[in-house]
């Protein structure tokens, strides 16, 4: 479980992958600006839309993801003080599936945003120009997890979202069909099943990243 190389998974049989990547940000002043590259990256992150409009909402199988900047390490007051020489863009993602297809999916779906976010990272501009090179790049930045905890499940995102949709719709169905006769119940359920399409994962379902019930349902 101290994963060598890949190191995003525990146990190996799980379909939940935890990607941890530290991408060094270029040092110095960003061209044409009075600020550091780091400040530009931070500004870019702040400008990203959130929730259903976050670029990560378009990356298949992303459960939860985050980006932040590791500016330095902290001093605890008890040992010799030390500092990082670079600042790092931290990219963490919990997702379903294998690393390489996941990253390829990311490139394919949000390439412009990937370029925008990573453009000021060391060696990104010089080496990344395709899905494969993006995969290689992130793998170079990846650090192995020591321990990964799954308090949820490792199903494909589409199943999780369909489940949430069904939980909500079925709950409403049950609450509003108390006291129905056997006949009524069965026929009401059949039309319910027809409407919600229990086994169909691509719809009706909840929209990834939806923050309100209204926008969750616009997908269905």
């Amino acid at each position, binding site marked *: 479980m101290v994963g060598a190389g890949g190191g995003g998974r525990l146990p190996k049989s799980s379909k939940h992958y935890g990607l941890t990547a530290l991408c060094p940000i270029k040092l110095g002043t960003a061209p044409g600006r009075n600020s550091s590259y780091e400040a530009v990256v931070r500004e870019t992150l702040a400008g990203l839309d959130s929730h259903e409009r976050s670029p990560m909402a378009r990356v298949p199988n992303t459960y939860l993801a985050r980006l932040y900047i590791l500016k330095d390490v902290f001093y605890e007051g008890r040992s010799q003080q030390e500092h990082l020489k670079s600042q790092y863009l931290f990219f963490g993602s919990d997702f379903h599936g294998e690393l390489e297809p996941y990253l390829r999916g990311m490139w394919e779906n949000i390439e412009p945003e990937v370029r925008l976010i990573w453009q000021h990272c060391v060696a990104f501009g010089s080496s990344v120009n395709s899905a494969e090179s993006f995969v290689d790049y992130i793998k170079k930045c990846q650090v192995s997890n020591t321990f990964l905890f799954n308090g949820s499940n490792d199903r494909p995102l589409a199943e999780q979202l369909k489940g949430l949709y069904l939980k909500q719709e079925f*709950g*409403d169905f*049950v*609450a*509003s069909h*108390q*006291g129905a006769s056997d006949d009524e119940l069965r026929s009401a359920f059949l039309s319910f099943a027809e409407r919600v399409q229990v086994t169909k994962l691509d719809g009706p379902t909840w929209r990834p990243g939806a923050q309100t019930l209204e926008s969750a349902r616009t997908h269905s």
Partner: protein
Amino acid sequence: MTTFEIRSGVDLHDVQGNIIKGYGRYGFPVARYVTYRINAAVAGRTFIKLLVPMLTTSVPWSESGVVEEGTKQPPSTTNVALTYEGLRRLGVPERSLLSFPDEFVMGMRARASILGDVGASAPKNWDPVWQTEDGQQPVHLLVTINAESSDALAQRYEEVGLAARAANDVAGDSAGVQQLAGHRSAGGADAAFQDGAALRDEHGTPGPKEHFGYTDGISDPYYKDSGSRSSNVIGGGKRLRDSSPATDAGWAPLATGELLLGHTDEALEYPAAPVPSTLSKNGTYLVYRKLHQNVATFDRYAASEAAKLSMEENLFRAKLVGRWPNGAPLASFPTEAEANAFNAKLEQAKADRFDETATPTQRAAATERHLELKEQQSGFDYREDIAGESCPVGAHSRRANPRGSLEFGQDHAFSTPGALVNRRRIARRGLPYGDSSDRSVDNGDHGIIFMAIGASINRQFEFVQQQWMNFGNDFRLGNDQDALLASWPDEDIDPLRARMTFEVDPDGMEVPKICTGIPQFVETRGGDYFFVPSLTALSAIARGAVDPT
């Protein structure tokens, strides 16, 4: 046996009496809550100086012959509490003020979105006395009086008023401390004070009912060294793992620091407290909340929804709260017949206990019986009822105090079954107000002056209100809210959103019942967060001698 712990780790002379004593339980059926504004520091400090000798402490009252120590029960009690703005105006130094926790500094109004005070409960709909023009807390000082009779109440109110006038004379400022009117009452919106009173039964005897018809004020947390009867640990303490909840071996006293600042708490430390320690030690916080009850809507909904779900209305009412209207807990008495039989025994023992014609021996025996039955009223948990087939998982009193049930049947998941509960307990010290004998309208003057006491408003009251009443995740109930207290931003809410499930035995043949379209039964009408200083701290404040240096 009734024994009191008098000698203990807490100086009960220093602790205000409303913290430890639920006055309602001691035969004080009437109360008056008087709100003041402090315009001149000198007048405010003098007022406090004059109030200190009148204050009721937590020293136990002697009960005929049972204890040797303790003071005699007075005809009325008096206590005082201060808001942040009150402390500021009294001249408490900035350094001390800044050491109070955020929520106290902000006050209850500013916490509205945390508390779910929206829609009908929004601050703009509160009583005039709680309205503010300059954004500052309008009420600075609260005097609470509880009394055995209206005469005793009136007399003490008079005396408090005299003290205020005397303070203003000293300060040479007739509005130095100013009593703030603006409490809504049956007579209009401008009452000079808020009255509270136990509801009376058909014989005019004050009792423990609240306006929806439930017996209230049964459960009461039990803290180490609090001087109350040690058998109150049953149901009142924290749940231990291996003994029955019906016995005192099943419970241990909560750490004193859950109730009082300056004492160690359940996290084995002193709770965060303002400086200097003389200001905070033996003090605590009081949440004062006026909660209006829509009795007509409640009655109508109980009748119609019970019919819709083919249930006895009394059972329906019991499921909402987790106790039968007569007070018997659903967890121990799942059927009405059992609950009624139990309650009849309890009432009989109580009558015998106070029967003047009986011999002292008979009365002592009845007292013993009565206390034992009261233990049964509190000595239960939900660990045999994880699914909620007797007491619904979302019932009001189960939400408010899940006892051992948040291990969800996973014995030993946590080091102690109360791990998630012991830091969330609140001592309730309020009383009903108004009259709801006309059950056909909602807009009469009736509700509860809800008062919650504890060492951290944020960790205890606000957490319970927000996470346990207005939300359901800790109980694995999604966004379901407490049925009694649910509040909604507007009236036309999707009926399927406002619901509650009455669970059944998962291995049985019945199906769960789901109430839907639960209307808003309770509306917040005002209140604030108060600090209840020790007598030591009050004297220091009165002298202008609080010095955190």
